[in-house]
């Protein structure tokens, strides 16, 4: 088996005195879209924050392309080509759409401009509201801005936290289509509660429960396993 793009090994993460992630194991293969599933409070967001170094693991390891980044500062992790779309989208409300994009650009070279053009074609709303403050966008537009912003730099791995949260079904459809296209260019870890969306996009899945990784496999297996779905995802 080839070396995974991302490997989380027995990671333990505390938030204040609470032991949130307990020996989490998690692997992402290059080119795939890996789903991170689990109930509210299971530890999905914390897992992404641990990977980004925002809540670093106190024991265990996080490897990117074989390199240990467990205690690397967040900004250096980002520079290794990891994009992050947080659960709350992390839009800088007082900056315009254009400024949100500009502040994210690590370089202003041709490749970056090309990716920017590409994102604006993918999300025409961003072009339309280029000069509008980020805080005045609709929920869906904020999500699009957050995704475009994370993708504007050269990205090997994109972490997206519940992009469908609070969006109307039509908008969810748009986000699905966008992630489908982004998937062709980069490896993605997607946290998602919306099983319809998860099912459309996922190659592999991991289920977290109470800070433990309890199950993983290919999407097809999850689809056929009604018990898993019922027990951990509350569907079926």
């Amino acid at each position, binding site marked *: 088996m080839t070396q995974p793009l991302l490997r989380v090994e027995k990671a333990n993460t505390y938030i204040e005195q609470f032991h949130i992630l307990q020996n989490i194991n998690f692997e992402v293969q290059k080119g795939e879209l890996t789903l991170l599933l689990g109930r509210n409070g299971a530890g999905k967001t914390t897992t992404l924050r641990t990977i980004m170094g925002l809540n670093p693991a106190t024991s265990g390891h996080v490897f990117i392309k074989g390199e240990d980044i467990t205690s690397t500062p*967040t900004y250096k992790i980002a520079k290794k080509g990891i994009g992050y779309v947080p659960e709350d989208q992390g839009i800088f409300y*007082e900056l315009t759409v254009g400024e949100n994009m500009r*502040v994210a650009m690590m370089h202003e070279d041709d490749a970056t401009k090309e990716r920017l053009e590409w994102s604006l074609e993918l999300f025409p709303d961003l072009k339309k509201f280029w000069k509008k403050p980020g805080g005045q966008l609709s929920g869906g537009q904020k999500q699009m801005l957050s995704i475009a912003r994370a993708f504007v730099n050269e990205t090997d791995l994109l972490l997206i936290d519940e992009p469908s949260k609070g969006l109307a079904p039509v908008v969810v459809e748009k986000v699905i289509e966008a992630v489908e296209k982004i998937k062709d260019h980069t490896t993605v870890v997607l946290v998602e509660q919306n099983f319809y969306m998860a099912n459309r996009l996922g190659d592999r899945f991991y289920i977290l429960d109470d800070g433990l990784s309890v199950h993983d496999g290919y999407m097809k297996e999850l689809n056929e396993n009604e018990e898993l779905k019922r027990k951990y995802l509350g569907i079926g």
Partner: protein
Amino acid sequence: MELFINLAINGIAMGMLIFLIASGLTLIFGLMSVLNFAHGGLFAWGAYSGVFFYVLLDNFWLGLLGAIVTGLLLGWLTELLIVRPVYGNHIRQILITLGFMLVLTEMLKVVFGPNIINAPTPEMFQGSWMIGDITIIKYRAFIIAVGLILFIVMYSVLKYSKIGLIVRAGVMNKDMIQALGVNIKLVFVLVFMVGSALAALGGALFAPSSGAIYAEMGLEFGIFAFIVVIIGGMGSIPGSLLAALLVGLANTFTAYYMPILSMVVTMIIMLIVLIFRPQGLFNISGVSNK
């Protein structure tokens, strides 16, 4: 009429001086939300080191440069030792920076002695121009020019440059700006150093206009700077300028027409502004007064 114009020019010059003191605090307090009561200490250190280098090297400009370097160094130390452990905690910031303020003040006395020191005005700025019946003191015109230039530079940098965007974004969401590849800690250190250097430059420019400097001046003017930043609106450079001019003009006019009022006019302005616009005159940076 001539009297009115003369008073107005004096008021604007005074306002510009206040702006110079407050501009650094606009960055540190308004933008980064650090309650830095040691800011006035930087101002006093700027005044002393400005005079010291001016006299030592016999060059006014090198004196200003010396003050700026002193400000950068002290700002770096202040951020590293005093402020870094207390980011996000206003109560601790007040206590520790007030303590540091006293240390800075006492250190001035240790290094330069406890007595009032004369601050010379450079020859080229001595005297005044007469235009009709209007007297323009040269050094005041110089202060007004420096204030305007600094205003334009600071405003443009914050509004249009990428570093300005990064600072504003970092204040809004520190996690996110780091997840976009920015070393925000380093950026904050730099902002703190620049803010401190501005205070020191303000002190060095202030010295010749008052003619004498003393260690406690930092305590007096530090409060002034806070008031101006609050009136102007947190983090707003145009707000600080407008507030500083307002305070300068109000002080000058009341000192002439109603001397009794001049003691409290700054407080009255602050009260009125806070009653009708609690967020300050401007609040373009979007940093709330929390």
